[in-house]
């Protein structure tokens, strides 16, 4: 299945892109997505192993099961206000 990963702020800098489509095994969870990104090596290893994530604009734990077409945002430490 395919999901879309979104990158912001320092995660976008290390990803070199604001978004990326990623193919995962059916039944994968958000932790699997992060693992598959880090396995690309290089800059990707600077991605924390357990970043905050939002699936379809809602904060969820890394254990959430993903579905085809989900939009998964990787959320760096916030600094709004």
């Amino acid at each position, binding site marked *: 299945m395919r999901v879309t990963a*979104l990158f*912001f*702020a320092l995660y976008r800098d290390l990803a070199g892109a604001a978004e990326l489509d990623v193919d995962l095994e059916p039944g994968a969870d958000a932790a699997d997505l992060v693992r598959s990104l880090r396995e690309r090596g290089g800059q990707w290893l600077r991605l924390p192993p357990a970043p905050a994530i*939002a699936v379809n*604009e*809602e*904060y969820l734990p890394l254990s959430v099961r993903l579905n085809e077409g989900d939009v998964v*945002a990787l*959320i*760096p430490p*916030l*600094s*709004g*206000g």
Partner: protein
Amino acid sequence: MDYIAVQAAPIDAGMLLGQLATAADGAVLLFCGIVRETNDGRPVAGLEYEAYAPMAEAVLREIASEARSRWETGAMAVVHRTGALDIGETSVAIAVASPHREAAYAASRYIIEELKRRVPVWKHEHYLD
């Protein structure tokens, strides 16, 4: 009932203020966060805010609802800027109308603290040094 926006356009706080209160309200509290000339002691040239805009608006709407469920509030407005801001510009404005001032202070404070904790917005500072 609540006005929520994450926008590149400058924030017109006076406008927010004027449109908020109804005849039932006895207090309006407006908080404006402003770009300071220093951050952690370092001189700032300006900064940029980046937002995950649709989610930021959804979370702000949720925070406003939570505030309303805890305190007796009327209309609320929360606006966050994105893009490049100069020193002195308003990065965030929170306006809360309420029948009573205690509720207005409590809700306003709740919203800014939760905003900083939960709303997907990132600040990129440009330093002079």
